C-alpha cells in the first residue's frame, strides 16, 4: 500500500468509527430514556420524530449551539483538554472491537490488553475535569471516580484473565472462536458476574454512580462544563456502556456465534440485551456509599476473583 492509500484508509476508518460512536451514543441516550420510561410507567420522548427517535439528535444540536462557558477561576489548559481526553478512548475502543468474523476496523493480536489499557485513559480526563474546574463538588466527584475505577480495575482484569486462560489467546477473534459452540458464561459464571459488576462500576452507573451522584455532588466532575464539552462527556459515558456490553458479548456470550442469523446481528443482539440489563440495574437500585463501595471491592470482589482465577488455572491448565 502506498502512503496516500494508507492515509485514505485511516481517514475513512476514523470517520466511520467516530460516526458510529456518535450515532450509537445518541441512540443509547434515547434507549435509556425509553427504558427508564417503560420501567416508570411513562412514555419518554414522543415529540421529535417517530416515538421520539430524533429527540436526542435535537438535544445534541441544541448542545452544539450552546455557549461554552469557561469559568474564570478554572485551570484553563486542563479544563479545555479534559473533555477531549475523556472522549478520546471512545473511538479508539470501538475501532478495536470486531463485530463479526473478519468485520471490524482492526482485530489486534493483543486486542484484550489494548482494550483495557485504552479504556483507562478516560479516567485521566475525568481527573483533569474535576481538578481543573476549581469546584469542590467536581473535585469530590473526580476523587471518587479515580478511586473507584482504579480499585475495580483489578477484579475486572482478574475476571477477564480466566477467560483468556481458557481461550489461550489475547486476540478477540480467537477468544470468540474458542466459544463455539458453548459460550464461556457457562464455564465461568462467577467471572461473568464479577466482570458485570466491575464494568457497571467502571462506567459510573447506578448503583456505583458516586462520581456524578446528582443528589450529593450536583453533577460531579462535569458540573462546570457546558455545551459540546458536556456532550463529549456524555458521549464518552454512553460509548463506555456500549464497549462494556460488547466486551461481555465477546468474552462471555460467544460474540457473533449463533445459529440462523448472520454473525453481526447476533453480536448486536447480545450487546443490546446486555445494555438493557445495565440500564435496568440503573433504574432499580439506590446508590452505595463510597466506603461501602470500596469495602465491597476489596473484601468481596477481589478475593472472589483471585479464587476464581486459581481454581480455573488448576482446572484448565492443571491437566484436567
Amino acid at each position, binding site marked *: 500500500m502506498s502512503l496516500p492509500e494508507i492515509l485514505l484508509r485511516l481517514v475513512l476508518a476514523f470517520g466511520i468509527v467516530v460516526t458510529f460512536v456518535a450515532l450509537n451514543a445518541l441512540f443509547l441516550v434515547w434507549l435509556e430514556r425509553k427504558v427508564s420510561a417503560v420501567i416508570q*410507567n411513562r412514555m419518554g420522548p414522543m415529540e421529535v420524530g417517530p416515538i421520539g427517535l430524533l429527540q436526542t439528535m435535537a438535544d445534541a444540536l441544541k448542545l452544539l449551539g450552546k455557549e461554552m462557558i469557561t469559568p474564570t477561576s478554572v485551570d484553563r489548559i486542563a479544563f479545555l483538554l479534559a473533555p477531549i481526553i475523556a472522549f478520546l478512548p471512545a473511538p479508539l475502543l470501538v475501532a478495536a472491537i470486531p463485530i463479526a468474523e473478519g468485520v471490524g476496523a482492526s482485530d489486534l493480536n493483543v486486542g484484550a490488553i489494548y482494550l483495557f489499557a485504552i479504556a483507562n485513559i478516560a479516567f485521566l480526563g475525568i481527573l483533569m475535569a474535576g481538578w481543573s474546574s476549581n469546584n*469542590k463538588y467536581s473535585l469530590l466527584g473526580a*476523587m471518587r471516580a479515580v478511586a473507584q475505577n482504579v480499585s475495580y480495575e483489578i477484579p475486572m482484569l482478574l475476571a477477564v484473565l480466566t477467560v483468556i486462560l481458557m481461550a489461550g489467546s489475547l486476540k478477540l477473534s480467537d477468544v470468540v472462536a474458542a466459544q463455539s459452540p458453548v459460550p464461556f458464561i457457562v464455564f465461568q459464571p462467577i467471572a461473568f458476574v464479577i466482570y458485570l459488576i466491575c464494568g457497571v462500576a467502571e462506567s459510573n452507573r447506578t448503583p456505583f454512580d458516586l462520581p456524578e*451522584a446528582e443528589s450529593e455532588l450536583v453533577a460531579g466532575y462535569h458540573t462546570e462544563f457546558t455545551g459540546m464539552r458536556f456532550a463529549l462527556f456524555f458521549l464518552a459515558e454512553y460509548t463506555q456502556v456500549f464497549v462494556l456490553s460488547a466486551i461481555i458479548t465477546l468474552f462471555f456470550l460467544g460474540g457473533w456465534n449463533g445459529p440462523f442469523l448472520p454473525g453481526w446481528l447476533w453480536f448486536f443482539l447480545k450487546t443490546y440485551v446486555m445494555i438493557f440489563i445495565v440500564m435496568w440495574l440503573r433504574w432499580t437500585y*439506590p*446508590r452505595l*456509599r463510597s466506603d461501602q463501595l470500596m469495602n465491597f471491592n476489596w473484601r468481596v470482589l477481589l478475593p472472589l476473583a483471585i479464587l476464581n482465577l486459581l481454581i480455573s488455572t488448576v482446572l484448565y491448565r492443571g491437566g484436567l
Partner: protein
Amino acid sequence: MPLEPESDAPVSEQPSRYLELIERLKKAGASEAAAVDYDKHGMDVDVVVTPQALHDVARLLKSEHFALEAGLGVDRQPELEVLYLFKPYGAGPRVKLRVRTDRDSATLPTLSNVFGGTDWYEREINDMFGITFTDHPHPRPLILPHYTNFHPLRKDFHGAPIVVPDDTVEIPEVDVQEAMKRGQAEGRRDDFFLNLGPQHPSTHGVLRILLHVEGETVLGGRCHLGYSHRGTEKLAEKKQYVQFLPYTDRMDYLSPLNYNWGYAKLLERAAGVESTPRAEAIRLIMAELGRVASHLVWLGTYLLDLGAITPFLYCFEDREQILTFFERVSGQRMMTSYIVFGGVRNDVYPEFVKEISEFVKFERKRLLEYETLVIENEIFLMRTQGVGKISKEQALEFGVGGPVLRGSGIAYDARKDEPYCDLYNELDWKVESDARGDCFARSHVRMNEIVQSLNLIEQALSKLEEGPVRAKVPRIFKVAEGEYYSVTEGPRGVIGWYLVADGSSNPYRLKVRVPSYANLQVVEQLIPGTRVADVISILGSLDVVIPEIDR
C-alpha cells in the same frame, strides 16, 4: 414517668391533678404557677418565672422528662415576653413557661444549655423581637439577614426599608473560625468548607448547610435558614381570622389539610364551637389521605436522595390519585383550604366512598411492592441502618416530632395521646414506633404509618353518617381575649398553633409550631463524623419541608 394519671378520665375532669407539679415548680423558683382549663385553652399549667429562676425551673422540667415543644415571643406592650412550651411524651400536662423582660434592655438568659432545642427558637426570637439571649452558643441571625436593624414582630414596627449595605459579606461565623483554628491546631491541612445548598438537589427546598469536611468525612455543619421566609406570622396579625385560612395551606405544601385542621381546631377551641360528626369523619379521611400522600413523597424523594429514581415516579403516581381526590372534593390539588372553622367547606361527592375504598385496596398492594423494591433492598439497608442515630434524650431535648420521634422509640402521637378528633379513639389503629433511632427506623415507622393511615381511612369510611358538614358559625368572627393552643399530628409531627387574641377580628399574635423546625435542628448534632453521602441520607430521613420551617 413520675406524672402517671390517677385515672383514665379526661384531663379537664381532674383540675387538681397537677397540683403536686405546681407545688414543685413553685419550690424550684417559679413566681406564679396555675392550672389552666385544657378544653378551653389547650394548655394545662401556666408558669411565670423570673429570668433568674428560669434555669432551675427548666432543669426541673427536664428531670421530669418534659420535651421542648416550642419557644415563641410575644410583644405584651410595653414588656416583651418569651414563652417556652413543654410536654412530656406520654400522659402529663402541657406546660407553658413565661419569662418577661422590659423593652429597652431586652435581655434574657439563654435556655439552650438546658434544652439544646431552644437554640433556633431563641435566635428567631432575637431576629423578630430583638431580645438578646446572653451566653447563647451561636448568636447569629437565623431568619433575617444580618444587616437588618429592625424587629418585625414588635408591635411598634410598621415596615422599614431594607438597606443592603454595599459590603454584603456575611458576618464571620464564630463556628467556622473556631473549626478552622481547631483544625490548624490538630495539624489538619485537607479540611475545607462545603456549601450544601441553598441550590442543591437534595436539600428539599432552599436550605444551606455549611459543612466542614475533610475529604469525604464531615467534621461538623451549621444550617442556614430564611431563604424562603414569607413572614406568615406577621401577615396573620394583619388578616382577619377567616382570611388567614389560605395561608395555612402554604406553610407545608405536602400536608395542607393537617394545617387546615389545626387552624380550624384552634378557632373552634377559641370560639367554643363543635364541628358536626360528618365533618369530623370527612376531616379524618382527608387528613389521613394527606398523610399518605406526604409519606409517599417522602419515600420517593428519599430514594431519589439515595440515588434510585424509579420509586419516586411510582410514589408520585399514587400520590397523583390522592391529589385527584383532593381536587374532586375541594377544588384544588394542593392548596385545599378545605377544613374550615366549624366543619369542612363542602360535602364529598357521591362516589367518594367507593373510590376511596378502591384506592385503599390498590395502595395496600403497591406498598408490598415498595417493600420489595426499597425497604428490603440490601443497598437501602446499607445506606440507612446505623446512620444518623437519634437517642431518646436527644429526641426530648430537641423536641423532634412525628416519625422522627417515634423512630427513636417514643410512641407519642397526638392523634392517640391528645385526640383532637373523637374518631381517633373509636377506630382500631396503633401508634407505630421503632427503638433503633437510625434512618432505617424512621423509614420503617413511616412505611408502617401509611398502613395505619389506610386502616383508619377504611374504618372512617363506614362512619360517614348523613348530616350537615358545617356547624352554624358567625360570618364576622371575633375571638374573645385570651390565649389558645391547639395541636394536630401532621405527617412530620405535632403542628401547634399558639394564638394570643385581643378580642378583635385579627389575631394579636399567632405562632405556628412547625414540626420540621425541631426535626431539622437535630441534624447539626447528627452529622459530625459521618460522610457527605450520609448527610444526604440523614437529611432525607428527617423529611423536612423548608418552607414550613421558614414560614
